């Protein structure tokens, strides 16, 4: 009888637990939705290591499409404008279109399978509440089940669902990178005057952009495989794409675990390349490149350096 009660208790606990997890995952859906559908503008601080940088961001939606402008406030002037799957970078008085994705969903949001992947690979925890930039937030922690990926901690505005602060932590609980809003305006009243000018800019730029730079890749099945991906990373994309500064198209494979992504780039190596191997990083992103059998491999991801190295060393050609 006692045992039976115990079993019942466990089942109830499990049920309650599942409901809690579900409510945290619901938060994520809200975040994904809010980040695309809400008008906002504000100032945020981005920090990694000893590097601190302030930027201004504005995001508005108009006629079912999004406009977004990211502007640096420290150091050399840099600006990124995103609209309808197209990205322009303004840097050193030059404007370049760097990426465009034709046929991308207008308002992408977390897909159900992405959410379930997230739940499989991370422990989603309620980490209480807090205040960021004067707004009340709900804190959620994603703890990975292995050391091959980072922990993520996010602060979500309780009313709008916007992400107001985000921290990436390593296995020693040290902050690898973080960004946090210091000032934020939500909803109507956000300045929209720049939209018209960016539209005009987009139009003039379209003529200037060389066709070779148009980076619409085509889906392929190249025969390259990665053997040692951390568990839970699934291939989300494999394209043969043109790339800035490269003559030949580059193969890009993207793997994701619901929260972090790893890209593997494969291309023939330049014969005059003397930089054969190296690891570098920017904030939570690690990049490892290596020339193997006259093939240049680049692995980039928001994962620890050991992971990008492990992934690169397991790339091989399996044949078609």
């Amino acid at each position, binding site marked *: 009888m006692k045992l039976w009660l115990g079993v019942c208790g466990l089942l109830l606990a499990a049920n309650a637990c599942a409901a809690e997890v579900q409510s945290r995952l619901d938060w994520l859906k809200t975040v994904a939705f809010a980040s695309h559908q809400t008008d906002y503008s504000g100032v945020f601080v981005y920090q990694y290591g000893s590097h601190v940088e302030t930027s201004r961001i504005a995001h508005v939606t108009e006629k079912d499409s999004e406009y977004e402008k990211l502007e640096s406030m420290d150091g050399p002037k840099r600006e990124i404008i995103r609209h309808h799957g197209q990205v322009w970078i303004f840097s050193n008085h030059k404007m370049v279109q760097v990426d465009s994705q034709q046929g991308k969903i207008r308002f992408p949001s977390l897909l159900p399978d992405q959410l379930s992947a997230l739940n499989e690979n991370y422990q989603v925890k309620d980490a209480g509440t807090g205040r960021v930039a004067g707004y009340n937030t709900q804190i959620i922690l994603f703890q990975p089940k292995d050391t091959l990926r980072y922990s993520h901690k996010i602060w979500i505005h309780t009313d709008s669902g916007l*992400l107001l602060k985000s921290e990436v932590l*390593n296995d020693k609980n040290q902050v690898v990178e973080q960004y946090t809003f210091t000032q934020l305006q939500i909803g109507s009243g956000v300045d929209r005057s720049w939209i018209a000018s960016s539209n005009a800019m987009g139009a003039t730029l379209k003529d200037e952009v060389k066709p070779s730079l148009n980076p619409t890749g085509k889906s392929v099945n190249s025969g390259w495989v990665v053997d040692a991906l951390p568990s839970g990373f699934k291939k989300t994309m494999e394209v043969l794409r043109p790339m800035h500064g490269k003559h030949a198209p580059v193969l890009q494979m993207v793997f994701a675990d619901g929260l972090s992504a790893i890209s593997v780039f494969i291309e023939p190596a330049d014969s005059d390349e003397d930089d054969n191997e190296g*690891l570098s*990083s920017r904030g939570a*992103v690690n990049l490892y490149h290596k020339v193997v059998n006259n093939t240049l491999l680049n692995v980039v991801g928001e994962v620890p350096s050991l992971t990008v190295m492990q992934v690169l060393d397991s790339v091989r050609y399996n044949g078609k």
Partner: protein
Amino acid sequence: MKHEISALMDGELFEDETDILFDQIRRDPGAQGDWAVYHLIGDVLRQPDYIHQDMGARVSEHMQNEPVILAPRSRALKQKARMFALSAAASVLAVGVVAWMSLQINPEAAPQMAMRQSDIRPVNLQIQPKSDDYLMAHQEFSTSNDMNGGASYIRTVTYSPEEKPQ
């Protein structure tokens, strides 16, 4: 060598480096001495009440002096041994069940891989300008966009004071 031994004790070496170093220590009595002294220092720092010096040597000395029993084992003893084995198996099983239960209740207790992220520091910390294109190409398809929106693009345009503008 001393530095390496210290690094080994702090768990800062990779597995292959560890193997090589253990091999070297095995062959070098001086290094063995260092190894013992470092552990002694560690013990003193952690637990000043019990300090064991040359414990290995003393244990082997005691074992030398221990009388060797050559009498055949009695049946009862065998029985006892079997009982012990059974109860040991039972307790191992119990430990297993407890461990399994704790895993179920608290997934955090799951054994972590003995690998540490923070041990590797990129050699050239800053991403080279030519790698920016890879970063950008990755960013566009990264899952972090779904939640962080445009703010995650900051990674692709962030500057560092050491970097010269192109």
